[in-house]
């Protein structure tokens, strides 16, 4: 389990570094939020306390690489993990056609959360001009991040009790 957590954290960290470098030449908002997407991938694959703790750690790492208030990403990414777990009990998030709109909705919820915590300046046209491309970028990258995460998990110790064993069945849910 520790290795899975490390893989998730490493993936988020690499993503954050890439986004932090690319943001200099990509228009604002057009880059995905790696910590959010890893939190979603974790929600799909890692249940219980380890998943929750890893999502929190991923968010905390994003906080340390941002000028936003410390703890904000941690709280929001943890919420993303919880929402993903809850949604996975009702719908098959493993399917792309479900995952993409879910991530769009989650990105919108993320913006509302940031606004409530004081991160987004003011709701309005300027905020939408960032929020819409950001949600689009998140949706576009969600599948890639999930697949990358799954592929990386494939290299993790196969003795891990979760390795390749977790299936999410709509209606039954996984605890």
């Amino acid at each position, binding site marked *: 389990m520790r290795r899975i957590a490390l893989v998730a954290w490493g993936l988020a960290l690499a993503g*954050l*570094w*890439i*986004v*932090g*470098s*690319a*943001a*200099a*030449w990509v228009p*604002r*908002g057009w*880059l995905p*939020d*790696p*910590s959010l997407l890893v939190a979603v991938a974790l929600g799909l694959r890692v249940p*219980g*306390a380890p998943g*929750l*703790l890893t999502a*929190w750690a991923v*968010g905390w*790492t*994003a*906080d*340390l*690489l*941002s*000028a*936003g*208030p*410390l*703890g*904000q*990403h*941690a*709280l929001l990414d*943890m919420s993303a993990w*919880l929402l993903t777990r809850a949604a996975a009990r009702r719908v098959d998030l493993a399917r792309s056609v479900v995952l993409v709109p879910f991530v769009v909705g989650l990105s919108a919820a993320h913006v509302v959360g*940031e606004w409530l*915590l*004081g*991160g*987004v*300046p*003011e709701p309005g046209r*300027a*905020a939408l001009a*960032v929020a819409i491309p*950001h949600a689009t970028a998140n949706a576009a990258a969600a599948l890639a991040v999930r697949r990358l995460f799954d592929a990386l998990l494939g290299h993790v110790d196969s003795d891990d009790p979760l390795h390749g064993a977790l299936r999410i069945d709509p209606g039954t849910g996984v605890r």
Partner: protein
Amino acid sequence: MLRALFERLRVPLLLALLVGLALLAIASDRRALARGARDAGWLGGFFLEVAAPIQKALSAPVDGVRNTWGNYVALLDVRDQNARLRERVAQLQEENLQFREALVESGRLRTIAEMRSEIEVPMRPAQVVGTDVSPWFHSVLIDRGRSDGVRAGMPVLTETGVVGIATATSRNAGRVLLLVDAQSSIDGIVQRSRARGIVKGTGGDGLEFEFFVRGDDVQVGDLVITSGFGGAYPKGLRVGEVIEVQADPSAFIHRAVLKPAVDFGRLEQVFVLLWRGPTLELLYEGEGDLPDREEAAAPAPETAAPAPAPRPGS
């Protein structure tokens, strides 16, 4: 049975703990920011230290291509530009002479000279190696840190004006909160009329200048400079130009929209003023002594660049 109960409550308990910890961190960070000081702590410092070289390496190929292309395009235009600049220099020299004459006559040259010496403090040039990972916050990562004399609370500039303030430093890297960030606010004055107000970041690409109605005169085209009050920035640094005045006669506070003096979308090299205002000096007291002016200026000639001074007549 107790164990079974603990197993059942493990996730909710952990959730409560983590939510509490995050909320506590947010509240404490907000309090620190309201005071004007923020401390990255050892963990934040570690992340800065690791992130700076990696992000610099990741940016290098794209920066290389951009610079090569930029230099090529610039070369094509250089002859025309040179002629235009020569003409402009001559024109400015003439203007300068006239201003000097006028200033000497009005006895204000000494005041200006004092102000210049006040803001001519040692600087460290720094390269921007990364930006904020969140689209909602505006900060940059620079490749200079405590080993270069850079400390949290020091103002950061370019040759065109104020960039922001260093909020966290590690040994070899630093994070700079940009002026346009919604968490930023500084005391400014209109250079022409001396109307005083607060310059706030909008969280977008612009700035907002809030000023009091009574007797204040702010017009489109006015230059807003730092006032020196508030203790974070020295007086006289360019902040932005008024592009719109939103004067509501019924409101006590008027607002003006500023175009920042700095193009935040193209930040590559910045200068860190090795100076910390008295307020921030108090707040960041535990962070170690600042280098002396002479000491900071000694190692390299690069450290003695003058700050962007206000135009005469202020």
